[in-house]
């Protein structure tokens, strides 16, 4: 299965600023996914990122707030823009199974606190 390196692991940011989260995968993958987990909640998909095309956003998420880059098949970034305390969450990236019998792999997550 793929190994994902996600950073930063945590950050405390001032409201109104932006944070960029990076995910590096040790193999080429077609699709990468970005999830948000608000405190005490489950994971919700923000967007799907394919290399060479615009990301596809889920209902309730917009590109101006969560711009995503996917410059190649092993790397993606998610930016949380103009942050407010409501953006305090864990953000995780994920990739599809590289083999048929393993399942999706997740990065270790970024714990963001906005003050």
């Amino acid at each position: 299965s793929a190994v994902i390196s996600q950073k930063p692991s945590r950050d405390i940011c001032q409201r109104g600023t932006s944070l960029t989260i990076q995910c590096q995968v040790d193999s080429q993958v077609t699709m990468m996914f970005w999830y948000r987990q608000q405190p005490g909640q489950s994971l919700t998909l923000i967007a799907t990122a394919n290399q060479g095309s615009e990301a596809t956003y889920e209902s309730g998420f917009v590109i101006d707030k969560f711009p995503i880059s996917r410059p190649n098949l092993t790397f993606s970034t998610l930016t949380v823009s103009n942050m407010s305390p409501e953006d305090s969450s864990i953000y995780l990236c994920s990739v599809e199974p590289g083999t048929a019998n393993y399942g999706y792999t997740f990065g270790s997550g970024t714990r963001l606190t906005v003050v």
Partner: protein
Amino acid sequence: GIQVEQSPPDLILQEGANSTLRCNFSDSVNNLQWFHQNPWGQLINLFYIPSGTKQNGRLSATTVATERYSLLYISSSQTTDSGVYFCAVRAGGTSYGKLTFGQGTILTVHP
């Protein structure tokens, strides 16, 4: 879209007890995974189990795809089993796409 329901929402056990967690889903799936989220927020993949039965040490899982449910069994629980357990599925009919997560079961194991 597909709906995923997990039960119970909370579970408190004494060390050594056994438990069963349930995941119901509303449509056919071609991917089902059980995850354990540790206190640091990391998601640990426990099982990839769209159908059938698997075992890994004290943990086992069964998915009955025709009846749209999956069960996660934890035997001889330990305090390190504490955390949140998530079931996540990918709807059938596509070989790619997102996972949809249930709301999770919060497991607390007391010594």
